[in-house]
């Protein structure tokens, strides 16, 4: 079993193979290979002893695409490498997705309306905080994909904006994480 994860700007392939001796594993981090001994504690956390004799404690949880790992002070999310999808930050989409899970408080544009860069199109609220979703460029509102008062998840499309001169080629923003 192997998983390729994002480490800063790099993608690193992870794998571990059990050795014949109980509790011993060979771990591969990309091209590097390490030998470790593992003890599992009562709460499911690990005590891992490395080649140099140093032992560290680690706990692991798992959700959809990430592992949450606390190891040696500090927790990190270990996520699948984004690979071919090219980073996929919401900056590309132009901010027309929900920036956070929340409730659509107000929609301040209408289908067919010409809007200018920086104009507020939707206001989303979560945890007592409001966030304005603004037009990333001049354009025309092709579609309003949300409703006032409705809960949306991070990355859910709210507005479809077309280029002002290309009304026939909408650029919808696809939800990347359809979780609320």
């Amino acid at each position: 079993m192997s998983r390729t994860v994002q480490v800063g700007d790099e993608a690193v392939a992870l794998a571990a193979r059990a050795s014949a001796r109980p509790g011993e594993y060979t771990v591969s981090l990309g091209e590097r290979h390490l030998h470790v001994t593992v003890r599992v504690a009562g709460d499911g956390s690990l005590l891992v002893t490395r080649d140099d004799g140093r032992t560290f404690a680690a706990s692991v949880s798992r959700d959809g695409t990430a592992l949450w790992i606390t190891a040696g002070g500090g927790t990190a999310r270990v996520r699948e490498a984004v690979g071919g999808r090219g980073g996929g930050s919401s900056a590309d989409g132009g901010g027309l997705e929900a920036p956070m899970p929340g409730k659509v408080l107000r929609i301040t544009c209408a289908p067919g309306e010409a809007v200018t860069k920086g104009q507020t199109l939707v206001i989303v609220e979560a945890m007592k905080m409001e966030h304005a979703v603004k037009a990333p460029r001049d354009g025309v509102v092709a579609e309003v994909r949300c409703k006032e008062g409705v809960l949306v998840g991070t990355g859910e499309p709210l507005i479809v904006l077309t280029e002002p001169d290309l009304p026939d080629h909408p650029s919808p923003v696809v939800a990347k994480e359809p979780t609320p």
Partner: protein
Amino acid sequence: MTGVPVRPIAKVLVANRGEIAIRVIEACAARGIATVAVYSEADATAAHVRAADEAVLIGPAAANESYLVTARVLDAARRTGADAIHPGYGFLSENAEFAEAVSAAGMTWIGPDAFAIRAMGTKIAARERMMAAGVPVVPGTHAAGQDLDALAAAAAEVGFPLLVKASAGGGGKGMRAVHGEAELRPALEAARREALGAFGDGALYLERLLLKPRHIEVQVFGDRHGNVVHFGERECSIQRRHQKVVEEAPSPGVDAALRARMGAAAVAAAKAVDYVGAGTVEFMLDASGEFFFLEMNTRLQVEHPVTEAVYGVDLVGLQLAVAMGAPLPMTQADIAPRGHAIEVRLYAEDPAKGFLPATGTLLRYRPSRAPGIRHDGGYIEGDAVAVHYDPMLAKLIAWGEDRQHAIGRLVRALDDWEVHGVITNLPFLLAVARHPEYRAGNLHTGFIPEHFPDGLPEPIPGEDALIAAALADAMGLGAGAGAPTGAERGAGGDPSAPWHLLGPWRGCA
């Protein structure tokens, strides 16, 4: 003592949720007082519901259909026979009408009288009342005339540095910082031009400019017998967009003499509105050591635990006692700080993305249990964090013999805190606690924008974390997967069995 009737409290309805509801419930329980929780549909299994003796559903998730609906809260209190209501902070805690309605319903309101809530509720009115009571406010003046000579005379009165503001203004337009006499006239002229252009009104207003001010607040407490004491100050300068993040007591910028002066000012402020119960007087303290009234919070404060740790007092217990009509059991002379305490607030927010709120399920949630560490939380492992309420999940308070000891304990506790499943500001809290300027006590309200202008990037997994990730996949560990937890093993296996040695027969499930 002075004829104040004693009204025992047998059952308290807590009109709040999350950590503060639990805090109040625990205080009542330790005194043998029964408790009633209220909850929205989103909170049906929340920790505060589990902590209370009884719980009443008061509406759907939206706070303005549940926790903020006075009629529903009052109805829940009536139905359960509660004889007092504690509002916590936020929600209805500074709602004077609600305070009156509680009293009108024959129940005890655990908080100040509606009069005091109202008196401190409007900033401008409160400022004027404080000036009348001799409490220092930020010096400022509308000049008698608006010609440059009159403004220059007014400036001499206010003192430098000062801020020139457009009387009609807002948004920084017509605003100029002036650091000395020489800069004054050009600044006044420029400000007037801008103000005229922006608002069509060139009237200017002068206010003292506070340089790198500290946010210092004083905890006050009044009873129904006319006594008011203070429990020193808290420093809350580490804030982001007026949301406090790290608080401590005592302030590294306040010595005993200044504490006495600020305490006296805070007591004067409280007495000016016949204050009863727990309240907080907020000040700005400038680099020169002058302090100025900002506002008064007429309720228990989120950061009250640092005061409790340093002054050895249970402020919620004191609220209950005072609400029953008891006199304060101490005088000012009995009150002295001991050691140092720091509170951090764990928010479900992403420091790498402009601190946007985050949600999820707490797959693993294990706060430190080290000595000197207090954890006031509203969630436990397995709980869902949803979008409906405040993003604050918990507060962690570290007490130490001195400030460095408290910081040492805090850093260790933050390091140990396992929070999986929800993105939080935990790495950011660690970065603040480890920052050399924080350790040096060089705090001011611009600390976060100055030292963390871009928040904090997401932590990059270290090598140990990657090893654990590889092993977890190979061994099928993590939620719901193959690891034999103690529970699954069942009780009483062979105590010498090598459960800690996992061979391939357990891996790759």
